[in-house]
């Protein structure tokens, strides 16, 4: 090992540049971050809410999925549970239907009425909907079930805000 003598002047130079460098970096780093912030922002799901259902698990048979989200009602914030009936239609597209009956707001169930198999059934006033959510004429509901926009992220299903459709 060579014996390299460091003079007092050199030592002070090194230390000052080092400390100065750190200070400059400390100031510049946040500035740079602010400047490139839009790039750093991760892609979030927007108003879409994550559900515990894997895309791979979706079948042709409607299945019930619960998901939770926070709802703010003036000064009162609460954890709400939402539900969706999810299945794949003939075209292989994912369909997520809202379970809220369009008649008076009860919760509909899949395939629970023995007289009308493979339909959505409302226990309150015996409303019926086809599998695709279309209301059956002659039963109380006047509009088809609302549909959630869906999205896939990391293999899981995300749903947006339920939207109404035109009725039969």
């Amino acid at each position, binding site marked *: 090992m060579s014996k390299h003598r460091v003079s007092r002047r050199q030592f002070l130079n090194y230390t000052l540049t080092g400390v100065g460098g750190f200070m400059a970096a400390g100031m510049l780093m946040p500035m740079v971050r602010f400047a490139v912030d839009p790039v750093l922002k991760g892609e979030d799901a927007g108003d879409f809410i994550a559900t515990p259902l894997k895309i791979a698990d979706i079948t042709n048979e409607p299945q019930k999925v619960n998901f939770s989200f926070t709802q703010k009602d003036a000064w009162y914030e609460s954890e709400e*549970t939402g539900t969706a009936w999810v299945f794949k239609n003939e075209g292989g597209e994912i369909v997520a239907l809202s379970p809220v009956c369009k*008649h*008076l*707001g*009860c*919760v509909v169930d899949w395939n629970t009425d023995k007289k009308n198999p493979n339909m959505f059934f409302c*226990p*309150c006033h015996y409303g019926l909907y086809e599998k695709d959510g279309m209301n059956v004429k002659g039963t*109380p509901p006047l509009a088809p079930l609302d549909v959630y926009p869906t999205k896939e992220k990391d293999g899981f299903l995300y749903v947006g805000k339920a939207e109404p459709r035109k009725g039969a």
Partner: protein
Amino acid sequence: MRWVAADVEMYQKAAEYVDTAIVPLLPVSFGDDMKQNASMAEFIGILTTQLEKQFKGRIFLFPDFVYIKGHEASIKALKEWENTLLDKQFKHVFYVTSDSSWRQQEKELTGNLLWLPSLSLEHMQEQQKVSIVEDQVKQLLSLFTEKWQED
């Protein structure tokens, strides 16, 4: 439907579809059972809210019927409630309570008494709470649909 302005408006438009009333019966006391009564109120409150969510279009969840525990006048007051509800085309009246003293007075009432032993939800995990209440609600749901199918 609940006792809020928006729901009442809906009720007034569709009153002929709403034939079932739920009245929670909640005792208040200041003795040793004060805390127990409070947890009853909590439990019954959560349970009836969930019930109402499922059957929003046919059930009207009325404000709690609150009374001083052990007070004889409460049955009289409740009967008055009952008569008013039956007059107002509610065919089915259900009382939901954890107070066992109502079981002796059940015969005097026309409505159905749903007595549920109170569960203390105080020390439970969120998940556990939800699944327990869901179970209870599920059992009650079938009770309601059966009652409706009778007529």
